[in-house]
């Protein structure tokens, strides 16, 4: 019931713009369906980040339903009807693949808080297209590096049988260097008992798995239930152990190693401010890296809006975003030649807090200032 009320008030808050004078920013994101919580994180992270930046803004949020058609429709209205010059928010690559070209052709700027499909990172890069999150490959390279650093030489790597899953395993293998058994899972699979049996049969030194969202929750639960948690160590990339997943699996995640570009215990001012602001605004909802990426996106956009004085001069705004002069929650942040981030990657451990629930603790920096493999193909 309480949830019902908060949602209702949220709706009202959305309908009544809080900063009617500010620059209008279009947020197209996924709020319906099982992945709806990702869009929720992005929307709320953006709001807090922009507020922290001190820029005058107004968010125009709309659900894409994870459907490219809807996304394009929304984008068209925002760009051509409402005269919005700055878009952001998309969670999934399939939506951004349809929407980003639409925005770029209209002369607008798109800043991605999450999705970063590889074609747009390489040959099809564009001056008005920025990614604040990360490119898929570098994400999983970090896990490979972590597994290597921990001294493992044999691994079983599991991911769903779609492009991002294959990229994940490729990325892991690239940095790991050891012997890897690849297992692909079904795209909508939710029971991994068969895979657990195979892992036990292979008896590797380490397991790497990439299953975001609900699949990740099911996988971790079943890993524990199969008695593998204490037996075979696991390394994960950040989408497979975000705070929402950890909350849903509870103790079943304790003991797992993660790799990430940001963690809640980071010791910098921006991160601390964000964690505090989030806790105040959304006490019931854990802050995930999606929220953090969106917060950084908010800070970046905000800093550029302040510098360029709004979106009246798109070229100036583009230059201000490209300069990336903001204090990122991840400490250091810079754009590479393809306007994707060049950043550090960290190894984290999932430990138990006093109540036995999982808590992510940052251990060490494993990769420094890395961009992505597609940057070389980008000629801007």
């Amino acid at each position: 019931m309480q949830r019902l009320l908060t949602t209702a008030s949220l709706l009202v808050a959305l309908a009544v713009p809080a900063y009617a004078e500010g620059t209008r920013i279009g947020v197209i994101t996924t709020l319906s369906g099982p992945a709806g919580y990702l869009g929720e994180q992005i929307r709320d992270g953006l709001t807090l980040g922009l507020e922290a930046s001190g820029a005058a803004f107004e968010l125009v949020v709309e659900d894409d339903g994870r459907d490219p058609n809807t996304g394009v429709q929304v984008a068209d209205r925002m760009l051509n009807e409402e005269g919005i010059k700055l878009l952001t928010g998309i969670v999934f690559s399939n939506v951004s693949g349809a929407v980003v070209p639409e925005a770029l052709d209209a002369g607008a700027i798109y800043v991605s808080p999450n999705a970063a499909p590889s074609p747009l990172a390489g040959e099809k890069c564009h001056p008005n297209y920025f990614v604040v999150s990360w490119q898929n490959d570098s994400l999983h390279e970090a896990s490979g590096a972590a597994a290597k650093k921990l001294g493992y030489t044999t691994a079983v790597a599991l991911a769903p049988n779609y492009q991002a899953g294959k990229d994940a395993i490729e990325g892991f293998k690239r940095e790991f260097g050891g012997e890897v058994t690849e297992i692909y899972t079904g795209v909508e699979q939710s029971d991994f008992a068969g895979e657990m049996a195979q892992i036990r049969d292979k008896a590797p030194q380490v397991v790497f798995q990439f299953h975001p969202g609900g699949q990740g929750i099911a996988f971790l639960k079943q890993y524990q239930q199969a008695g593998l948690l204490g037996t075979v160590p696991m390394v994960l990339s950040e989408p497979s152990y975000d705070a929402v997943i950890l909350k849903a699996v509870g103790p079943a995640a304790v003991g797992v190693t993660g790799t990430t570009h940001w963690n809640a215990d980071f010791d910098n001012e921006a991160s601390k401010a964000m964690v505090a602001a989030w806790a105040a605004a959304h006490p019931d909802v854990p802050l995930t890296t999606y929220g953090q990426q969106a917060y950084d996106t908010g800070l970046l956009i905000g800093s550029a809006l302040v510098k360029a004085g709004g979106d009246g001069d798109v070229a100036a705004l583009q230059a201000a975003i490209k300069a990336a002069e903001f204090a990122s929650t991840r400490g250091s942040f810079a754009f590479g030649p393809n306007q994707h981030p060049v950043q550090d990657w960290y190894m984290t451990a999932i430990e138990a807090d006093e109540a036995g629930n999982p808590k992510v603790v940052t251990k060490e920096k494993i990769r420094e200032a890395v961009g992505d493999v597609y940057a070389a193909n980008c000629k801007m």
Partner: protein
Amino acid sequence: MKRDNLVLLAVLILLALVPFAAEFTGQSSWTKLVGQALIYGMAAASLNFILGYGGMVSFGHAAFFGIGGYVVGILYHHFDAGTAFLGIIPGTDQMLVTLPAAVLVAGLAAALVGALSLRTGGVQFIMITLAFAQMFFFLFISLKTYGGEDGIMVRRTNALPGLNMKDKATLYWVVLAFAAAYYLFLRRLVRSSFGQIIAGIRQNERRMAAMGISTLRYKLYAFILSGMGAGLAGALMVNFLRFASPDMMHWTRSGELMVMVILGGVGTLAGPFIGAGALFTLETTLARYTEHWMLPVGILLLVVVLTSKGGLMALIAKLKGGAK
């Protein structure tokens, strides 16, 4: 008959004016909205031919929509990269080539699915068509070369000689021309000798067999024609959105097409277009006001189906009857 044609002409003129009206009122996204609705209307109308006129309830029609779309996407991909499909077929961005290719490939796929499915009927037919669509869905998700589940970008709309396809209004009119042509084709089709046989099969397959009609062949032919129509719609959609992805053939998309047909009016010519327009407008409009748009959409659909028979077309007929 004359009056029908007048109404049709009037509707066409109104639709042709949409880009101007959109510009004039500042609601420029209408062009895209109506364009997408028209394309969905074509896909739904193609489904309606087998579903409404032929009595074959296919729950996998989005597969042909998606396949048609992917033909455009894949040909463009090879055109862009300067490579050839399977090393033989060169890519192209010419609409005069891509659309017929899409129609052809979708027709072939429909021939395959139809030949295997049409032996069954009722619920079994519903499920087996769904099953084939799922297979295509999983196939395209695992096609790495063509973007897998992320889909495939078509950076530029296919070229049509003499037209500036970058211009939104031009593209819209091209779509409208296709939609109108397809509508006229369907009108012709349901009134043709073949259309009559198909209508007969829907009402009484046994009787038609006793008249010497090998019903399976006719149903297969209808299924293929319908699949080709969906392929054409899919190819236009990819040109319109400049993007193809496996979403196009997800089973919920098949469900959506069915919803459009039923909402508009099963077995009517204009119904699917009206249903597509209504559903699409409803979704987009509601999504502007609430993130929870699915709830009102669901309730509305439920109310429509529980309180009316024959969808919006029946409602229109009722209103017209009342006005007389």
